[in-house]
C-alpha cells in the first residue's frame, strides 16, 4: 500500500448525486490523509465534482476547479442581492416563450409590471410561471431557452 489516496469515482458520483438532490452547494468528506470535496456554484454551474489529494504541508484553501471558476467569472458583475434579480425557485428547465416558435414573454428593454410572467420553468412536466416581483425594465436575461436551471440560479434582472 502506498500512502495517499485511492481515486474513487463512484464515491464522487454518489456525493454529486446527493448534492443535486439536496440542493446543497458543497459536501466534504475527510478521513486521515484523504479528503473529497464536491462543490457546485448554484448560481450557474451544475454539480462539478472535484477531488483533492491529501495536502503534504499545511492545508491550502480548496482550489475551485476550472469550470466553476470560469462560470463564476461570467456573473461577477451581477450583485446576487440585487432586489430586481429574479432567481429560480426550483430545479428545472427554463423556457422564455409560452410555446415553441412564439414570441418570448419579455426581451431586453421590455417594461414589465408586477405579476407579469417573465418565463416558465418546467419541472416534472409542470410549467411554472415565474413572475416579476417589481415593475421596471428587463436589463439582463441570464438563461437560454431550453437549458436546465438550478435552485437559486439568476434568471432575469429587472431594474
Amino acid at each position: 500500500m502506498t500512502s495517499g489516496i485511492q481515486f474513487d469515482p463512484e464515491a464522487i458520483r454518489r456525493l454529486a448525486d446527493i448534492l443535486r438532490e439536496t440542493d446543497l452547494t458543497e459536501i466534504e468528506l475527510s478521513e486521515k490523509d484523504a479528503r473529497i470535496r464536491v462543490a457546485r456554484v448554484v448560481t450557474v454551474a451544475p454539480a462539478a465534482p472535484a477531488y483533492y489529494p491529501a495536502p503534504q504541508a499545511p492545508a491550502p484553501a480548496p482550489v475551485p476547479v476550472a469550470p466553476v471558476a470560469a462560470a463564476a467569472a461570467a456573473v461577477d458583475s451581477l450583485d446576487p442581492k440585487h432586489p430586481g434579480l429574479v432567481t429560480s425557485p426550483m430545479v428545472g428547465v427554463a423556457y422564455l416563450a409560452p410555446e415553441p416558435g412564439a414570441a418570448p414573454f419579455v426581451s431586453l428593454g421590455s417594461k414589465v409590471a408586477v405579476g407579469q410572467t417573465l418565463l416558465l420553468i418546467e419541472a416534472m412536466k409542470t410549467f411554472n410561471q415565474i413572475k416579476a416581483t417589481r415593475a421596471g425594465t428587463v436589463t439582463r436575461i441570464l438563461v437560454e431557452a431550453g437549458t436546465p436551471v438550478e435552485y437559486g440560479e439568476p434568471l432575469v434582472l429587472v431594474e
Partner: protein
Amino acid sequence: MSGLAWRLSIEESLPSTQTLVAQRAEAGEPAGLAIMARRQTAGRGRASRTWHDQPGNLAISILVRPEAEARATGQFALLAAVALHQAAAPHAPVRLRWPNDLLLGEAKVAGILTEASLRPGGALAHVIFGIGVNLAHAPPVEGRATACLGPIPPEGFAWALLEALDKWLDRQAREGFAPIRAAWMAAGPAPGTPLSVRQGDSFIRGRYEGLTEAGALRLLTEDGPRSFHAGELGEV
C-alpha cells in the same frame, strides 16, 4: 376528505378547458373548480403539441390551490398521476410513465399538462391539471402508439378522478409526499427497466431506479446514478 368543494362544470364545446380555468384562477376562483368539455377545438399538450380530442373522450382542467413552496410543484404533477391511475385502474391494467403519462402496454391512454402560478416569494398561488383521457377512442397520432380505456362515460370518469384527487390531496396535506411517491412507484415501471430521457437533442440512457424523495426520476446510467427533474422519456 380534503374539505374542498368540488364543482364540475360540463361544457358542450370549448377551445381549451385549460385556458378557461387559468382565466378563472387569475380572477380569484377558489380551489375545486373542474371544467370538462365534450368537444375541445384547441386542446393543448406539452410543448404546445395539440391534444387530439374526439367525442367521448375526457378533456378536463382542474384548479387546486395547495399550500406549498414552488419547488414542490412537480410533486403535484405526480400526485395527479397517482389519482389518474387510481381512477383508471378498475377499467384496464394501466401503468405510469414518469412523470404523469398513463400507459396501456406501450400505448398512451392519458396525459396530464400541469401549469402552476407562483406568488412573489415563491409559494404556489395555484395549480391547474389539464387531463386528457382516451375513454372511447384512441386517436391516431403519428409516431406514437395510443389506446383507449373504454368505452366509459366521461362524466362518471370525471367524478371518479375528482374523488381520487381529493383523497390524494388530503394525504399530501396530512402526510407529505412520501405516500404519493410510494403509490407512484407501485404503479410505475419495474425497477431495472431500460429508459431514456431526452434532454434537448440528446438522449441519456439508463436503468430505472425509482424516484428520489423529491420525485425526480432516478436512472442508473453508464456514468453512475443520475436524477432528472425535467425531460421527456423516450424508447431506449
